[in-house]
């Protein structure tokens, strides 16, 4: 075969091409190159030269000693330790892995397996500045890719590859929840918004001059709430203990009845009745119960929890405390997505204030035995951890692999104890219902979906931001209010949600009609919907945990087919394969991520048949690879580029 490559005849070139089709081992390297080349999102660490660890003024041993002590030498705190080490040293150095493993009684392979699961953790240094551009489709539509590449050019780096001097890495990351803030990025975990040409120039300059992030212009870090429509939730000012006083005055059973009568359903997306969840958990016999707030707001295009945590966190914490008082929990956790690291400081402050005011800690509001406290745990770049059982695994310091359900967390959750896991918005609503009453909530919305819903509106509209509506509002009403015209489609509930074509704009946003976790992304007629679908397909490949076959392999195959489609090479056969793979993922995956990952592809095929038809190749069958491009290596070796050395 080697001889054939050097033989300068057309037939030899063709032979070589065939050998790629049938000779598996030859094709190996080609496939690998293509895959890593198109999947930059994984941040492949091509580092060739080790760089020195940054900011090592303090002896790492001392830092680790203090860190381990602060984390009680608890193996369940592994992820929290790793997170702290990453942000201090820009990676988890080998000595730290050894030290953590021995101090926490874990194997080195276990520590490595956890590091490799989370996108924000690395075993090789990212450098003094780790810059990640948000890569949601709405960011892409605002020109994020061009700005990222321009910054790379100015700094002289390849995307995803640390600069040799250890100064900087520039890469992309899935949606950071800043879709209403212009193009945004994370620098050492902290969000920078409104990135444009001018800011890129300044950022490049700051990086070259090694100006510490703390000294960057303050306005870079400004994050607006952008609330364009308030309803009862956002208008009401609660969270100062009213709900807890109501609990102490009326008792847990009465308050649980109040929540039940309100008809409150989980705002995370599944819509499970909150009171029922709390009741089952309360009744589950155990020495300990837990309350967990899911603030891993990772669904692309969703940022309403960010706003609630910025401006209504007292209410969030009060909702958690109310739940604790009802189910009898002493400990709660707020699982905050890594992208919202900038919120941690102010949330810790609010927690401290609540302890001072007697709204948290021992004997809350003077009630003997009403003890409850909240700890903040950081996520580290794993969308799957928004699934409640994966979140619990992550909270226990492990890889975020969703558990087998049943049993459900409500009876066997954190540390195998009964656990309530609710969304930020759900806890907020619960606290407000407890203080303002059933009617205040119940007379908004529809019979099956009471109350209001916060929508995170982004994409092609004049006013991207937060809109609070009573349930039952039409899609069209939202489009009119946010200044969207000429709309081609709305992607509802994020990448895992559903694509709404104009014919369905009169449908209503409610659990019984168009359900949503809060994401509302708008695409006008000028947009290529294939770009959206491809962005989401890549997102799911990046975020699949890899546990089950259909999501791990099927998701990857689906992404490849969407890429083929995007390039105009897909045949009718490929469309049928996309439908088959998608249906298999929906029906046979282990968890909700795999079940919903093919939705954007399947929705596009179903709702936009004309568009699909335009993109189809005219051939009945097209190979999965570009035959002519595959001959490039042979052309290089033979020095030929004449017509006979090409196919077609």
């Amino acid at each position, binding site marked *: 075969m080697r001889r054939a490559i050097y033989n300068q005849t057309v037939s030899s070139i063709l032979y070589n091409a065939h050998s790629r089709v049938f000779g*598996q081992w030859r*094709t*190996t*390297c080609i*496939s*690998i190159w293509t*895959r890593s080349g198109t999947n930059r999102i*994984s941040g492949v660490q091509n580092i060739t030269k080790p760089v020195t660890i940054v900011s090592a003024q303090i002896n790492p041993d001392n830092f680790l000693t203090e860190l381990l002590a602060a984390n009680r030498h608890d193996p369940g705190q592994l992820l929290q330790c790793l997170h702290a080490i990453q942000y201090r040293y820009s990676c988890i150095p080998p000595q730290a892995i050894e030290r953590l493993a021995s101090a926490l009684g874990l*194997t*080195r*392979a*276990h520590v*490595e*397996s956890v590091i*490799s*699961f989370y*996108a924000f953790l690395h075993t090789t240094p990212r450098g003094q500045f780790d810059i990640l551009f948000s890569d949601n489709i709405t960011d892409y539509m605002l020109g994020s890719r061009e700005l990222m590449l321009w910054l790379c050019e100015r700094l002289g780096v390849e995307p995803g590859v640390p600069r040799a001097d250890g100064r900087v890495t520039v890469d992309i990351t899935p949606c950071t929840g800043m879709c209403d803030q212009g193009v945004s990025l994370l620098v050492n975990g902290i969000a920078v918004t409104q990135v444009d040409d001018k800011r890129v120039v300044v950022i490049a300059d700051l990086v070259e001059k090694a100006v510490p992030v703390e000294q960057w212009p303050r306005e870079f870090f400004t994050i607006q709430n952008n609330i364009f429509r308030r309803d009862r939730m956002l208008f009401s000012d609660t969270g100062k203990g009213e709900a807890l006083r109501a609990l102490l005055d009326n008792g847990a059973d009465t308050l649980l009845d109040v929540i039940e009568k309100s008809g409150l359903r989980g705002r995370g997306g599944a819509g499970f009745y909150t009171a029922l969840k709390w009741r089952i958990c309360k009744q589950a016999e155990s020495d300990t119960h837990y309350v967990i707030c899911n603030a891993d707001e990772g669904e692309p295009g969703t940022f309403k929890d960010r706003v609630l945590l910025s401006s209504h966190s007292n209410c969030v914490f009060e909702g958690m405390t109310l739940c604790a008082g009802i189910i009898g929990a002493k400990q709660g956790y707020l699982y905050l997505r890594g992208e919202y690291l900038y919120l941690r400081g102010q949330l810790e402050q609010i927690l401290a204030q609540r302890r001072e005011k007697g709204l948290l800690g021992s004997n809350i509001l003077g009630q003997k035995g009403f003890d409850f406290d909240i700890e903040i745990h950081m996520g580290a770049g*794993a969308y799957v951890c928004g699934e409640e059982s994966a979140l619990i695994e992550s909270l226990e310091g492990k*890889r975020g692999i969703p558990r*087998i359900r*049943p049993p459900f967390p409500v009876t066997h959750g954190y540390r195998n104890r009964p656990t309530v896991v609710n969304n930020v918005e759900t806890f907020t609503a619960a606290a407000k219902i407890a203080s303002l009453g059933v009617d205040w909530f119940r007379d908004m919305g529809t019979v099956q979906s009471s109350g209001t819903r916060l929508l995170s509106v982004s994409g092609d509209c004049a006013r991207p931001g937060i809109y609070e509506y009573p349930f039952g509002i039409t899609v069209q009403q939202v489009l009119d209010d946010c200044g969207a015209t000429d709309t081609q489609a709305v992607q509802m509930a994020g990448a895992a949600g559903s694509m709404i074509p104009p014919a369905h704009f009169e449908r209503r946003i409610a659990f019984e009609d168009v359900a949503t976790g809060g994401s509302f992304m708008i695409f006008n007629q000028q947009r290529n919907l294939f770009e959206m679908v491809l962005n989401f397909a890549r997102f799911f*490949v*990046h*975020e*699949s*945990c*890899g*546990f*089950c*076959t*259909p999501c*791990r*392999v*099927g*998701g*990857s*195959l689906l992404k*490849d087919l969407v890429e083929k489609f995007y390039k105009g090479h897909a045949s009718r056969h490929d469309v049928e*394969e996309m439908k*088959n*793979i998608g249906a*298999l993922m929906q*029906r*046979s*995956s*282990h968890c909700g991520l795999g079940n919903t990952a093919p939705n954007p592809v399947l929705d596009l095929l179903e709702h936009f048949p004309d568009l699909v038809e335009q993109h189809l190749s005219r051939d009945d069958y097209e190979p*999965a690879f570009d035959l002519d491009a595959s001959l490039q290596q042979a052309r290089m070796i033979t020095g030929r580029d004449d017509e006979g050395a090409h196919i077609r």
Partner: protein
Amino acid sequence: MTYSGTIKIDGRTITFEQGDTIMDAALRAGEYIPHLCHNPEFHPHGSCRVCIVEVNGRQASACTLQAVDDMEVINQSESIVEQRRSLLQMLFVEGNHVCPGCEKSGACQLQAVAYYTGMLSPRYTHFFPRRPLDASHPDAVIDFDRCILCELCVRASRDVDRKNVFAFSGRGINSRLIVNSPGGILGNSDFAATDKAAHVCPVGAILPKHRGYDQPIGERLYDKQPVSIVGDVAAHEQDET
């Protein structure tokens, strides 16, 4: 007293005991449900999804779903078999499975289940991953090309051998088996050929050294009878050792 009840699998009524999954009950009754990551000696895992069945219009993995009285389970419908075939095809293209050149051919559960479900071609585009072989151990070799990520070796080493030799690294399509040792190679670990973990691999990923092809092709486990009758390869490994 152990509660028992009955479920129906494709119309045949079988009994189950309290705590049984559908798979437990089926195995006891001799009702074959194709599977790869399940081994009755270990906690159910549910990752390969090959044992999916339909219950009340919904699909679930038989190895993880608890049996409930009067449950009607569909195991062999056209739709289920078609989905299983797709899952097997996915496993085949994800790794590098070259049956004609594989020492495990004929005694490989992946191959046997693929035959059983009527898989005739890999169908999907091959991934052709590059996975270096680990031949560092004196008594065993790991051919990562054939690993189907069932985690049986991880579970055996953790739960039976108490050695934690194996773990999983990476995420998504980059998930892979790793070895807990300096340098990450098997030779530097405390893995032994007598370990349970050396005898649970359903494919040819973990193979003993020094006994290649001691059983001729044609006389191997699945050469004479299908997997539905012979059962798991791991169960027969135990007979040999």
